[in-house]
């Protein structure tokens, strides 16, 4: 109950702060199982995607988040597990007990759609998009019936950059592109480049001299 109210409060706050709008450029908000893969620049990323999804889709869409961050402390655990119903994975290969891909596949098999960040970490470099890790390829190969939708989140890196505490009210847009899928026999490398290019194609054009 409190978690539901908190979730509603967060989406209202996100709307007031960023005036976020969803642009369904390449597909429509349908009730089918999807992995929404997006660029990652801030903790607010999945909040924006979540806010922009219709309520019915929001209920069965779970963000994938780092356990080492969201399990630390009671408040973060409440937000991560109760409010957003995140699928928490351990990023450190030496300390983790289960393969993160197995955890994600289990979540998919229970019917959830996922919000996933193939870059693996928040992008704080000058590059627009970091190279993709292999997670998306492995998930797509194991569950080919799940639709992969690229989602570009624009401007959120200016609202709350890594290391800042005060969010700036700036306009953000969330653009949903056409789904991609692994071609028969396609290897991880080419798929990673192709899916990365598909995501980058949704980003607004950059001007010279930036």
């Amino acid at each position: 109950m409190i978690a539901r109210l908190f979730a509603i409060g967060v989406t209202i706050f996100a709307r007031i702060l960023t005036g976020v709008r969803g642009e369904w450029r390449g597909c429509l908000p349908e009730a089918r199982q999807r992995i929404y893969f997006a660029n990652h620049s801030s903790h607010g990323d999945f909040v924006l995607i979540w806010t922009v999804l219709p309520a019915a889709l929001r209920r069965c869409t779970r963000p994938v988040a780092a356990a080492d961050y969201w399990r630390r402390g009671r408040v973060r655990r409440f937000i991560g597990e109760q409010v957003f119903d995140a699928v928490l994975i351990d990023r450190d290969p030496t300390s983790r007990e289960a393969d993160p891909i197995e955890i994600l596949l289990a979540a998919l098999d229970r019917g959830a759609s996922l919000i996933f960040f193939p870059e693996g970490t928040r992008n704080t470099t000058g590059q627009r998009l970091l190279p993709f890790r292999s997670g998306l390829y492995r998930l797509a190969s194991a569950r080919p019936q799940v639709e992969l939708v690229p989602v570009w989140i624009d401007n959120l890196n200016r609202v709350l950059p890594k290391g800042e505490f005060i969010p700036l009210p700036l306009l953000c847009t969330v653009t949903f592109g056409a789904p991609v899928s692994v071609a028969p026999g396609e290897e991880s490398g080419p798929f990673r480049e192709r899916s990365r290019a598909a995501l980058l194609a949704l980003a607004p054009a950059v001007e010279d001299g930036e």
Partner: protein
Amino acid sequence: MSASQQTLVLFGGITAILVTASLSGFVLSLRFAESPVVVNLNARIKAWWVMVALIGLAFAVGKAGVITLFAVASFAALREFLTLTRTRRGDHLALAAAFFVVLPLQYYLISIEWYGLYSILIPVYVFLLLPVVAALRGDTAQFMRRIAEVQWGLMSSVYCVSHVPALLTLPIPGFADRKLLLIAFLILVVQSSDVLQYVWGKLLGRHQIAPSLSPSKTVEGFAGGVASATLLGAALWWITPFSPWQAAIMALVINLMGFCGGLVMSAIKRDRGVKDWGQMIEGHGGMLDRLDSVIFAAPIFFHLTRYWWTV
């Protein structure tokens, strides 16, 4: 007529105009259902209903309502403007100060009617101090461009817009309880100038004024719109402390400044490669698309009124 009677008559007249517009739009939509111009027209009329309702509500609440309304409008406008600027991480604190310190402070100063400070807070104090905040963060790449863009944002979206509710603080002899109507005069004249320029432009427009800037602005639209809006302003002299002639001159100044505002803000949009400042108001674009004429007209109207009509 008393102040409240005049307000009722005014809003009655506006409602009548909007009803006429809605009916015409409805008839047009029956005949030309697919035309994008008609669809846009009806979206615009709907948005006008909402805006008039909000302003009416603010007027009903009084001074606090009007100040709050324009503070919210400034917030939306500033957000749209600064979204298009090319600020970097080094500007984060300065931008946070702009939204969460400067904007509330400006409107607070207007609410306590401290003219001496609200008239210079942004052009002097913020102009000088905010770049220091950015400079101390150490990022000098594009520094002058960044601080200039932030200052422009604060001047246009906060300083200029705040001079609309600031009209309420002017001590005009014999007009003390009717100052809300002065705001109504400004908004009505400047917005009808926009609408009339559009209408005249659609009817008679042929020679473009600034083709690279705004393809829809024509000499015929400008002349017809400004002239008819000035006549409208003269006809509204009874809600102002001006005589009909004075109201006409004030309206002319408002309309000319409003046109300039539209031109300059269009130039900025062109530079940034966008057609609209945002998508907050359906049919119109963003808050700044609606306020661009008001931004240039409000401070001049405020100053002229203050110079000639106050004690």
